[in-house]
């Protein structure tokens, strides 16, 4: 795969096959003509929990298996719910966690081969002047995609690490550094280069005082859809006293967006309506909505407030 830029690994294939069928290609995005099935790698779909070591996931563990794993449900409810919020039951049975966090964005200009946008190696973002109802309100620069994953914000909220295999060997990094924005490289959404593989996901055992919440706002309420905004929240608290907060949103920025300003505003404070409003406001302070997506600012703020309340309930 390393030698052939037209080769891609395939596991569940739920994103990749759509990409191939839509024939998405451009100067920076070759047409893929070789798929390497990686499902046969032993142990790549493991879900292993150890009280001392935390949770280890093989990247090929399916979303369904993660959602229904008793340990994940018990100790990492935010991850179980995020996995269960993605797509439809059929897709969750074949779709893997690795595929979910590495899936390509849903921007309709990117997915349409007629538009030679930055992400395909072109030199224009059509969303800036076009239809941008579902595009980024934060950290958009050059390209305004939003990160589509439901699982990624949960992993980041749980301070998970990614282990990747590259030409130079194995490397482990927090998911906060795994996703990269258009400024680093507009052609990809994460650190993986051609031929690199995500090989392991690991997260520590959460504090016994941690409360968690995952909320997804989607356009089509009761059925399956990509998130307009979702938020994964982990709050370590003693009663009303917040010790630590980890809040990550997807659907608002080109990478999963850690609401650092909100986390800082909450840490060490006693929860109150005023505090939550202030924290949510701080998180969205730098929002730069486009012509049609300012509605996401309000949704994001409300979801942050709701998710912190829910995590502390």
């Amino acid at each position, binding site marked *: 795969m390393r030698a052939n830029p037209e080769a891609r690994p395939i596991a569940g294939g739920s994103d990749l096959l759509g990409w191939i069928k839509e024939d998405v290609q451009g100067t920076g995005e070759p047409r893929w003509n070789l798929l390497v099935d990686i499902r046969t790698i032993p142990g790549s779909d493991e879900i292993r929990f150890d009280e001392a070591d935390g949770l280890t996931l093989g990247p090929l563990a399916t979303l369904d298996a993660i959602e229904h794993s008793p340990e994940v449900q018990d100790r990492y409810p935010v991850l179980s719910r995020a996995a269960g919020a993605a797509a439809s039951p059929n897709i969750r049975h074949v779709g893997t966690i690795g595929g979910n966090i590495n899936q390509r964005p849903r921007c309709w200009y990117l997915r349409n081969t007629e538009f030679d946008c930055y992400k395909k190696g072109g030199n224009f973002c059509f969303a800036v002047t076009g239809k941008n109802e579902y595009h980024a309100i934060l*950290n958009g*620069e*050059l390209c305004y995609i939003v990160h589509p994953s439901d699982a990624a914000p949960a992993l980041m909220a749980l301070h998970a690490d990614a282990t990747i295999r590259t030409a130079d060997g194995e490397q482990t990094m927090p998911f906060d550094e795994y996703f990269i*924005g258009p400024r680093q490289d*507009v052609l990809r959404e994460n650190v993986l280069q051609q031929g690199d593989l995500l090989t392991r996901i690991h997260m520590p055992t959460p504090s016994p005082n941690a409360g968690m919440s995952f909320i997804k706002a989607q356009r089509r309420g009761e059925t399956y859809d990509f998130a307009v905004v979702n938020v994964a929240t982990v709050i370590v608290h003693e009663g009303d006293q917040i010790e630590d907060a980890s809040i990550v949103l997807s659907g608002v920025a080109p990478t999963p967006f850690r609401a650092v300003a909100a986390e800082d505003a909450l840490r060490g404070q006693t929860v109150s309506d005023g505090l939550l409003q202030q924290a949510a406001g701080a998180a969205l*302070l730098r929002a*730069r909505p*486009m012509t049609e997506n300012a509605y996401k600012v309000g949704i994001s703020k409300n979801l942050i407030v709701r998710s912190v309340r829910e995590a502390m309930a």
Partner: protein
Amino acid sequence: MAEDPTDGGREREISRRDFVKRAGATTAAVALVGVGLPGVIRGAAFPHMAESGVIMPDPGLCIGCLSCEVACSDVHREIGLSEVPRIRIYFDESVQVKPAIVESYGDRGSFMQAPCVQCPDAPCLPVCPVDAVRVEPTTGARIINESTCIACGKCEDACIFPTIDEARATGEERFGQRSRITYDETRNVYAKCDLCYFRPEGPACIEQCPVNIRINEGIIQSDVLCLDLAPGDRATFERMREQQAVPAGGEAPA
């Protein structure tokens, strides 16, 4: 045949004196012409520096998309130079957004572009102890030679155009910018706008600005570009000095 070292020495001496004399005369002539024909011979008051182009922004057309920042980083990274963006975009409520932009982009907020002004008498140039800041001959850009820069920071201090408080920058990344010359801690060098002298197409920011593209396509009606290449004359400098004055107060926008 052996040369007479004394002769050679005298010859050199004469030619140096001659050169100094001639240079003085040229300076005087250029200065005179400069006074007589303002705007024709640019940079006349500073004949030791070639004229330069300048990235001339129109804040009223900026939509804060950061395409210029990212394009700048990209093209410099590609040729192995510091990827610190040489132009930055800041939130600035005092900027009046033009109607053509409001029509196309709605109420996106108002922004101020902060490029290098390529001052006619660039104060960043003489302060460099290792002559790493120099004038690039084809574009006239005042550029920093990264291979000789010793990162002393004198040019950054000498720059007379401070930037707005970085808390008001629209991008997430922080570079500790104070003026139009920025320290790149990953490479331990300073970086500034070099007008993309290595690109035959000209500055990447001007080329990739989506507002510029839309203006050129006639979709947005405007006589001026969001980012344009203006002649680096006194008039431009004075205009830029007025435009690029840092607004009072450094509060982040609410």
